[in-house]
């Protein structure tokens, strides 16, 4: 009986120390503690832990005095050099040289033209399905020895990096994923290893995202149903 009560009391020590108990519960614990040396000891250990943590948290370190200035400088630099910076980074990541990327052509290309002159060089790859959704395959070339994961994020998945990972099933360096999308205009990016944001090197067009980077744009004008 006594043991059971002690266990019950000990379960509430943390809540007691965090002031998460009602007045009645507090009194119940205090009354028990007065008469129980075992629980007193346990209570003292917990109290010591909370005290040590509280005094540990009193450190008030600050980053270097010019911290904000340096962050803003980096942002500025990134904005100014955004386009070439990204290009370099992508080409470093690509296992193949980017010979087939015709940037000017890609930017000016409109989807309707692509629909009728479908070209295997251009991604994402679309297939038109009777259910009103279009199968879009996103793909990217990357060396699996240097890259652990690629995900596509965009307007179609709330920019959630966990929803649509690309996979390289046959280990040939071509990572892909296929999504079913409604007609519309979507901005999207690839995230490599959960942190490097790169625009799709083979996107139809790009837009400035307003922060110095370029988002890839995908336009599905209307569903072509058979």
């Amino acid at each position: 009986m006594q043991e059971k009560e002690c266990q019950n009391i000990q379960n509430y020590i943390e809540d007691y120390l965090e002031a998460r108990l009602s007045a009645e519960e507090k009194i119940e614990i205090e009354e028990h503690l007065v008469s129980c040396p075992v629980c007193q000891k346990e209570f003292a250990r917990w109290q010591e832990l909370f005290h040590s943590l509280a005094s540990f948290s009193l450190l008030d370190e600050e980053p270097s005095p010019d911290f904000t200035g340096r962050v803003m400088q980096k942002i500025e630099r990134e904005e100014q050099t955004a386009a070439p910076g990204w290009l370099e980074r992508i080409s470093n990541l690509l296992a193949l040289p980017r010979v087939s990327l015709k940037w000017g052509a890609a930017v000016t290309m409109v989807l309707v033209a692509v629909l009728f002159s479908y070209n295997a060089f251009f991604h994402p790859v679309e297939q038109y399905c009777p259910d009103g959704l279009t199968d879009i395959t996103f793909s990217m070339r990357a060396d699996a020895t240097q890259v652990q994961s690629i995900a596509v994020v965009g307007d179609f998945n709330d920019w959630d990096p966990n929803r649509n990972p690309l996979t390289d099933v046959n280990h040939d360096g071509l990572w892909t994923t296929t999504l079913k999308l409604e007609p519309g205009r979507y901005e999207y990016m690839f995230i490599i290893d959960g942190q490097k944001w790169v625009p799709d090197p083979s996107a139809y067009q790009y837009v400035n995202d307003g922060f110095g980077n370029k988002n890839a744009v995908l336009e599905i004008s209307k569903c072509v149903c058979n």
Partner: protein
Amino acid sequence: MNIKNRLDFNAAHTHDNDLKIIELCQAGNSDAFAYLVEKYKNMVYQLALRMTANYHDSEDIAQESFLKAYRSLHQYKPSYSFSSWLYQITLNTIRDRIRKQDLTASFSAQPENYQEAGSPLYPNSAELAEDPEERQIRKQNRFAMQSAINALSLSHREIIILRHIQNLSYYEISKILNITLNSVKVRLHRARVELKDMLQEQEQENKE
């Protein structure tokens, strides 16, 4: 300076103010972001410092976290407070770093570095004025605590620091870690038990 005048840095309106600043940034006024950096730099830096126990890495992690936040500002959802969102970004940056290089090792490999000025464990100026003996005890306790925290698993370390060092509420922690309130409670309990046992063991070793 215009922006500053228009904003009232009253704690009660802090979320609204953050939203106003974010809107300014999104409208292309990148300078406005400096106010967010200024406001949250200590929070981000201290989280990194407690997680890694390394000054140099922490400064780096803090900078990287702000850059990431800036780049992905268009993904920020006002249903989160900006600070919770920034905590998430910072924790992700820390997790990446810890996964890539064993930051813990760099700390425990040099147990003496807490005695140097400039170490995160070096006493602050108020403590320097104290009685030297007391200061020594304090320093030892602090070192013991940081060592124990560093020995925790990553998820236990995170939750202990969010609750006890950053003094966040269970609700805020549940938002940041994206877990239920009950999971916060359970995880926090397990982390504290682990920490308590470790400190007790250390104490016994010291006595022997």
